[in-house]
Structure formats: C-alpha cells, structure tokens
C-alpha cells in the first residue's frame, strides 16, 4: 500500500515536471506524450490521420490557395490578352482594394490584384487567392465608379466565400489530402512530384471548368451578389450600382453579352430582384458622389 502511494507520488512529481515542460514548449510536451502513448506506425494510420485533419475545401491553406490561384490566373491569361494601360490598371486596383479592405476577407496570402483583359466579351472572373479580371467590354458597359466597384465587390465575394475552391471535386480533394498527409518531406522526390502534379492538374481543370465553361451555380451567384451589397455599402459605394449594371444587360442579345458573365449567371432580372431585397435591408444605403463618377470617366473614358 505504502509502496503504491510512494509510487503514485513520485509519478505525480514526474508528471508535474512534464507539465512544466509542456508549458514551456509545446513541442517538447508533444514528445513526452508521444513516448507515453501507444503508437501504431503504419502508413495507413498516417493517411487516415491526414484525412481526419483536413477534409474539406475550407482546409486548403492560404498558401495552397495562392498557388492554385496563380495557375488558374495563368490559364486565364493564356486565353485572353491583357489590355495594357498602366493608369487604368492602377485605378482598377485602387477601386478593388478599397472594397477588399471592407470585405469579410481583407487579408489574403499575396494581396488582391486586378487586371483588364483585352476582349469585347462582357465578363469578370476571380481566381482563388484574389487575382481578379475584368474585360474591356465590361468596363465599356460601366457608366460610373459605383457599377465597377460593385462588380469587383461581387468577385471579391466569390473569393471571400471560396467559391472557386468549392468547385474542386470532393474525391480529388480527399486524394490530395491523403497524399499530402502522408508526406513528411518539404521537397518532393520525382515520383511523388509526378503524382502531386497530376492531382494539381485535376484541381485546376475543376476550377477553370467552373469559372469559364460552366459557370457557378445559381446559389453561389446570389451569395456573391449579397456579399457585394454588404462589402460595397460598407466601403461607401451606392450598392445599386450592380443592379443598374445588370439592367443594361436585360434583353441584350449581342455576342459580347452572350459569351461572358451572362452565359454563366442567373438572368439579370432574377439577380436584380434579389439585390434590391438585400439593399432594402440596409436602411439608407450610401449614394453616388460626382467626384467618383468624374474620376471613373477620366480613367475609363478613353478605352479603345
């Protein structure tokens, strides 16, 4: 009995020392636990652990999202030429970043970046990671800064809600996480790299297919419109800019209108209805300011 008590006391003392170690350095404590607990070291357990720890698009890290986004952006820039006008690009980045600061996701791995694509199609695209594109055709259709800002707010909404990452097939994501969870190395050997690159190619085709070919589902579009109203109004833009822009698209059967944004979205009429409901919920929304419309015309008035 006595021996048992002494044993328990010394064990408790040992435990106390271990606890101090745990407080001073978590990794040390992890080491203590590792030796204390039973282990099953086969690779299968590691893979299962990997799946338990990361199991949805929301578990893709900021850095991984950035690398996915870079490649999605590279594929977009492989299809469309860039409209080169440094002043306009700068203006676009100021409008976009002004909205981003007031969004639900102001911080993103490498910041938000905006670029004009040289095409008459009327379109806007957001790659994961905050690389956002608008077409020359869309800029020509905008009449003031509010319209442009609200379209950028819609795209920032897609990024903030990670709609692009949600396009990745679940099975593909599980393959990726299982594979990555089993890797202890920081640099991959040729065989692992080939396997990971194949998964990466699949991820990109899921996202680009959704972004350019199929378009987001109806709910994602309504969600992005709702976020646009929220972010835009917080910034101080008149949120009906997006409804006024959409109104210009009603009944537009031109090739430019049919190819881009509106091929892939719910109809403009349906969206305007939802947007007006969201704006009504704001009470008194901010209004248009002439100073903004003037600077919009200075920057976008001479589009070729």
């Amino acid at each position, binding site marked *: 009995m006595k021996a*048992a008590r002494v*044993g328990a006391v010394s*064990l*408790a003392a040992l*435990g106390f020392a*271990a606890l101090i170690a*745990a*407080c001073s350095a*978590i*990794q040390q*404590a*992890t080491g203590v*636990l*590792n030796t*204390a607990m*039973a*282990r099953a070291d086969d690779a299968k357990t590691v893979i299962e*652990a990997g799946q*338990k*720890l*990361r199991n949805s698009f929301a578990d893709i*890290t*900021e*850095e*991984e999202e950035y*690398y996915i986004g*870079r490649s999605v*952006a*590279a*594929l977009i820039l*492989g299809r469309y030429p860039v409209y080169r006008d440094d002043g306009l690009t700068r203006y676009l*980045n*100021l*409008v976009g*970043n*002004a909205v981003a*600061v*007031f969004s*639900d996701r*102001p*911080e*993103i791995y*490498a910041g938000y970046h905006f670029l004009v694509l040289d095409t008459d199609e009327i379109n806007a695209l957001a790659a994961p990671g905050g*690389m956002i594109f608008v077409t020359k055709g869309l800029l020509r259709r905008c009449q003031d*800064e509010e319209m442009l800002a609200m379209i950028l707010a819609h795209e920032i909404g897609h990024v903030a809600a990670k709609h692009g990452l949600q396009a990745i097939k679940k099975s593909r994501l599980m393959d*990726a996480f299982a594979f*990555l*969870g089993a*890797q*202890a190395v*920081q*640099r991959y050997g040729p065989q692992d790299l080939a396997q*990971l*690159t194949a998964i990466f190619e699949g*991820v990109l085709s899921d996202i680009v297919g959704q972004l350019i070919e199929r378009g987001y589902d109806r709910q994602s579009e309504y969600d992005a419109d709702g976020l646009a109203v929220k972010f835009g109004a917080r910034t*101080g833009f008149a949120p009906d800019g997006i409804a006024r822009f959409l109104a210009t698209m009603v009944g537009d059967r031109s090739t430019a209108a049919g190819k881009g944004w509106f091929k892939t979205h719910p109809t403009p009429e349906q969206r305007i209805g939802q947007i007006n409901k969201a704006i009504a919920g704001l009470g008194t*929304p*901010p209004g248009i300011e002439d*100073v*903004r419309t003037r600077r919009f015309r200075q920057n976008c008035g001479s589009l070729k």
Partner: protein
Amino acid sequence: MKKPRSFIILLVAMTLSLATAAADLLVVSVQTTQIRKSPQFFAASIATLKAGEKLEKVSEANGWIQVKTASGAIGWIHSSAVVASKFSLQAMNKDMKTQATAGEVALAGKGFNSQVEASYRAKHGEANFAGVEAMLRTRVDLAQVEDFLKKGKLGAFGGAK
C-alpha cells in the same frame, strides 16, 4: 491499481493544458502583414510579420485579434491573416512532423507549393505565368487606398454603411 489511474489523470491534465495552450496560439497565414496600434487597417503599424510567425492571442474585437509577437510586441491583426495552430488529439500518437493540419502545412510550405507549380509549368506551355508575375507586381499600398477613399468620399470620409 493506483498507478495506471494516476497516469491516466496525468495524461488528461497534460492533454487539457496542451489544448488550452493551442487555442491561444496563432500562426500568420498570409505572405506579409502588419500588426497595428488599434483594430483598423489605417491605424499605425507596429511591426511587419511574415507567413509562419507564431503569435499569442491576447484579446479579440470585431474581427480583429490583439496579439503578442515572439519579440514581445503587442498589436492588432485582422482575423483573416491568421489561423489557429491546431493540435489534433487523434494525431498525438504520431510524430507531429508527419501530420498535416492546415496551420502546420502552411508553416512547412508543404502541399501545393512552388515546386508543384514548377512541375506543372514545365508541362503546360499554354499557361501564361509571366503574365501572372506582371499582375502581382502591380501593387497599391494601404496609404494609397486611404487617399483614394478620402478623395472619393468613401469609408470614414463619406457615407459608408
């Protein structure tokens, strides 16, 4: 009989203390960011932080977190710039270095990284990465954004809701 029970109690105590410690430990998840004097983007910067830096949570308010850096500086960071450093209890029986929580993957630079991109680029000439690099070089800083807001009667300078 007492020995194993004490040992289990000890393990539970340690696990709890670990979970508490982990809950207050944050990791910077964006490339670079700042901690600021007050919880807003246009407040004065106290220090610049890089991805992977560990922070201790002090308090929280409206999407902003007051943190303490490794060097002891205290300031505010937006919650979208950090992730909680998770310790998974299911993963405790493995060497932590082989585990992949979101925070730890970001730290290690594992997963889809520059090496995977380089491998993808080598096979896909149709992807225009030079264009992406040029796009990323165009930057506007927060002081310029603030000036833009001011001139456009936006944000704190106008009718923001």
